[in-house]
């Protein structure tokens, strides 16, 4: 109740900006970044970023409490690591980073509220964080109406491109589509879809259905469980009796544990019916129990086992800071990379101003732990290498297949005939 007036006035501010943006995005179809209109409205909204001293403020906005804390705490940790490294390395444009931490509390409305606070009263130059699509969707109008920047580190369902958000996790053509290509290559002709009942799995499964229809793969079942659902005996019974070649899993959070325990106990194995998951990373494997997921497949852009000098340094630094038993994962790496990408953009622009950073973004590159990534200035996603991995009995994920080179981001799946009509 208390914050209703602010969100209303924010909404009033947002309307003209959003209208302008949507017209631009319709007209230019993605090339909506350098808009003088938004830049000037930014100064009108009164950017209060203070760059006069020898430090500059940035915001970290992650759920440190609530149901998503499990995942987002790890992202927060790797952001802190990146900030410490950058500060030790002389900061950004010679200024030390001063971190303002806020807790999104796993509530989209709190994310929006805290983002407003970070931008308007803490005067941060950029915000890093968010995890669920619901939190991102809630923050999007805040960043657009205040013309500030959000760096979002998690793979998501695509079909979005805001000039005020940089997406450093995978979009669907860098994760789900390559995973389907891999399965098709392995001779999979029938799939069972299991997902949590919210926006990401439902959108992902729409894409999978379109892909399957075009590639002669039969979808023999599609089941959704409410977030936090822990009794999978019925769904596993359905999977078992449908007898697909493989299961495509878009379950999120704790549900994965219950699902895999049930799956194993029902006598299903990775040999007879492999499960390919798109949101189980290294840190979740310990929670699920390695013995329940050994041999199962995952699709990501980074694993702790990726071999590169940058990754060795990243893993070593992270474990030195947080303990040798803490694994690194894709969203953590994407968050870590996002802070460095922001630094590269700012230094290329030689300015902390949002419009300058947006303009400088195209082509900015960084040798990330996952490999070299490049920012696409049109849709603000980054080119990433796609990896399908197999979970080993050491609890880590080992690359089974790689796209070899970074895949250009295509959030609206415009480059795929079968995807016409999805967006």
């Amino acid at each position, binding site marked *: 109740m208390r914050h209703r007036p602010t969100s209303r006035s924010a909404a009033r501010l947002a309307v003209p900006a959003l209208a302008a943006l949507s017209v631009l995005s319709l007209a230019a179809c993605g090339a909506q970044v350098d808009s003088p209109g938004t830049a000037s409205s930014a100064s009108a909204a009164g950017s209060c970023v203070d760059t006069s001293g020898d430090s500059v403020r940035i915001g970290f906005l992650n759920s*440190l*409490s609530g*149901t998503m*804390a*499990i995942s987002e*705490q*790890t992202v927060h940790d790797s952001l802190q690591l990146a900030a410490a490294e950058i500060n030790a390395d002389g900061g950004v444009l010679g200024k030390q980073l001063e971190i303002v931490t806020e807790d999104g509390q796993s509530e989209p409305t709190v994310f929006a509220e805290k983002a407003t606070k970070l931008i308007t009263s803490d005067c941060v130059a950029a915000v890093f964080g968010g995890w669920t699509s619901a939190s991102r969707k809630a923050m999007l109008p805040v960043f657009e109406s205040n013309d500030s920047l959000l760096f979002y580190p998690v793979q998501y369902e695509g079909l979005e491109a805001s000039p005020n958000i940089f997406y450093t996790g995978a979009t669907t053509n860098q994760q789900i589509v390559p995973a389907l290509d891999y399965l098709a290559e392995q001779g999979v002709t029938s799939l069972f879809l299991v997902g949590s*009942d919210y926006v990401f799995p439902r959108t992902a499964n729409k894409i999978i259905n379109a892909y399957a229809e075009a590639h002669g793969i039969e979808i023999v079942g599609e*089941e*959704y*469980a*409410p977030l*936090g*659902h*822990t*009794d999978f*005996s*019925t*769904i596993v*019974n*359905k999977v078992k*009796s449908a007898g697909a070649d493989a299961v495509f899993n878009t379950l999120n959070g*704790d549900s994965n*544990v*219950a699902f895999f*325990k*049930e799956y*194993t*106990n*029902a*006598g299903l194995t990775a040999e007879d019916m492999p499960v390919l998951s798109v949101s189980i990373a290294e*840190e*979740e494997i*310990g*929670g*699920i*129990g390695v*013995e329940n997921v050994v041999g199962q497949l995952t699709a990501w852009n980074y694993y702790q086992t990726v071999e590169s000098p940058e990754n060795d340094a990243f893993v070593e630094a992270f474990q030195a800071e947080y303990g040798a038993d803490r694994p690194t994962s894709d969203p953590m790496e994407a968050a870590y990379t996002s802070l460095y990408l922001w630094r590269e953009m700012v230094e290329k622009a030689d300015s902390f101003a949002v419009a300058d950073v947006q303009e400088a973004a195209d082509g900015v590159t960084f040798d990330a732990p996952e490999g070299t990534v490049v920012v696409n200035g049109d849709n603000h996603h980054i080119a990433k290498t796609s990896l399908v991995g197999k979970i080993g009995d050491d609890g880590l994920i080992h690359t089974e297949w790689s796209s070899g080179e970074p895949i250009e981001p295509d959030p609206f799946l415009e480059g795929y005939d079968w995807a016409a009509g999805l967006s």
Partner: protein
Amino acid sequence: MDILSQLFAGLSLGSVLLLAALGLALTFGQMGVINMAHGEFMMAGAYTAFVVQGVVPSAGVSLLVALPLGFLVGGLLGLLLEGALIHRMYHRPLDTLLVTWGVALVLQQVARDVFGAPNVDVSAPGWLSGAVEIGGLALPRTRLFILALALTCVVALTLVLRATPLGRRIRAVVQNRDLAEASGISSRTTDRITFFLGSGLAGIAGVALTLLGSVGPTLGTGYIVDAFLVVVAGGIGQIKGTVVAAMALGMMQAFFEYSTTASVAKVLVFVAVVAFLQVRPQGLVSVRTRSLA
């Protein structure tokens, strides 16, 4: 064959609900305390299993150690809560709801601080992995174990209430507190013991849940609503009503879910319970004592 495996799924879901609700049937049903921290006592039981597994490496032995220890941990937490807060507000059920809700949030944060935000895993003993095959029907051993555990708890609780002096005292206090006091029963002590038993059962339920999912600070919140649903539908204060309601809800969930989806099934179960309570507000088994009317 599908029907048989769904029948078993419903039965095992029912036994999980029963474990979660049995302690509530005692604290809510018998004592009129709406204990929202009941789920967190389950969480404490689950973390007990995790800690025990760290000390006792053999998964089989550690499960058997964790069960009584989980009972003790849950029970002691309940005792603490009763002594510190709840005994001040008997006969004010709505106040207990708010207070214990706060306690639940505190306990979740304590768990997060002590054990960390990521969920942890308790591995099941070897003799509980896999399934028992009966005529082509695969019955997961963990589910059979939980079924047996729930049954044991019901029998034990019934025996305590029916056949021991303690049980007679508990029933006496529930039925008529003043008369019980007048005949020399300390209602204070009896309240404490009842709360200890109810919360201890939550601890056992928590240990059992580690066989099905992972252990995290919010483990209990997923079960608390279902548990209250079972107790209310079963008829407040009645063990046999709780058993029947848990099994009925489990079966309904399993069969609705098989013919529709998990989300729709949850809604249908709610609708069914609401409709049922319209017809029979007192629940499956009605309360016959005067004090709880």
